[in-house]
């Protein structure tokens, strides 16, 4: 499969989980509500806007939308709602909690190679030691070290037999 080119529909790497997307929607709602109330109170443009996240600003810029324009905000809200409804979610289970950098790299690869708006959910499974377990809508892919150990059972037995036959001095 040929990787998709970066388009306006691709989510920035800061938005990795459905929680991140929900947070953006809340930020946009808060901003929209603040600007709407400010417009009702005064015709002048408000000076102290609520602080917005970098991800929200990047996503708006990526889609050529201006957050101060009510129409753009409406389009942005619709876009985010559409993404929330349509974005596929994939679950990853790791042995330890992943860092934001790790998640950003992983989700970047997924959005390039699998789906441009894909979101991931992260869970902890310490028994897998290393690697990960991936659950899509209907399937599960075990990329864990435990699975590798099971697959390499004969190699382990062979190695131990070799160690028993040739003990170290």
């Amino acid at each position, binding site marked *: 499969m040929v990787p998709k080119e970066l388009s306006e529909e691709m989510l920035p790497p800061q938005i990795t989980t459905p929680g991140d997307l929900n947070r953006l929607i809340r930020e946009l709602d808060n901003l929209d509500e603040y600007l709407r109330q400010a417009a009702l109170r005064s015709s002048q443009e408000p000076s102290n806007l609520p602080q917005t996240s970098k991800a929200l600003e990047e996503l708006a810029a990526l889609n050529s939308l201006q957050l101060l324009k009510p129409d753009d905000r409406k389009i942005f809200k619709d876009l985010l709602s559409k993404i929330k409804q349509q974005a596929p979610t994939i679950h990853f289970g790791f042995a330890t909690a992943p860092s934001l950098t790790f998640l950003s790299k992983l989700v970047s690869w997924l959005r390039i190679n699998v789906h441009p708006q894909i979101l991931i959910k992260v869970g902890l499974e310490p028994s897998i030691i290393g690697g*990960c377990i991936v659950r899509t809508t209907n399937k599960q892919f075990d990329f864990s070290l435990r699975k590798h150990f099971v697959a390499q059972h004969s190699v382990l*037995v062979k190695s131990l037999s070799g160690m028993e036959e040739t003990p170290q001095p």
Partner: protein
Amino acid sequence: MIIVIIGALVVVAIAIVWYILTSKKKPTKHAIKGTYEDQAKSDVEHIFNDDFRQELRNRGRLYFEKIINENATFLQQDLRQTTSQLNEYIKKEITEKLGEEFIKYEQTMRDANQIALESINKTNATLETETQALSAQLREQFSNEKARLIKRFEENMAEIVNYYVVSAVGSQVDLNDQLSFIIGDLQANKDEIVKDINNGA
């Protein structure tokens, strides 16, 4: 020997008594008439007067004492000799008896020792047999247990290694170091993942 000495003493005593008696009761068988007889009587009375008799008695007493002393000496010597011989005899007898008893005791000890050795040998043989049987049984049990453990270990080796690695390294495995491997696995299964996502419910 003692009897002979005592007999000799008795004979000597009888002889002295007889001599004394005969010297007093010497009869005058021939009747001498007249003055010869009287003179003889007078001479006899004169010669064997009381002093002479007393002197004879003293001599007899001295002789008897001498004989008695000599015989006592002999008797003493004989008693010493007899005692010495008796001691030697008793010593010899006791030595012989003790020797016999010691020989019997040694024989008994040898027999007892032999019986004890035989008993110990039998016990050792029994113990050896039991030990061999027990060793064989233990070897078999060890072998079975070893085979069971090895089989179980081989069957659950992946889980054991997994548990060991989790216990050993646990949460110290850095996910950033695993990113390339995870992406490699994802790349290998990318088609299936994309297909499942596109066809998802």
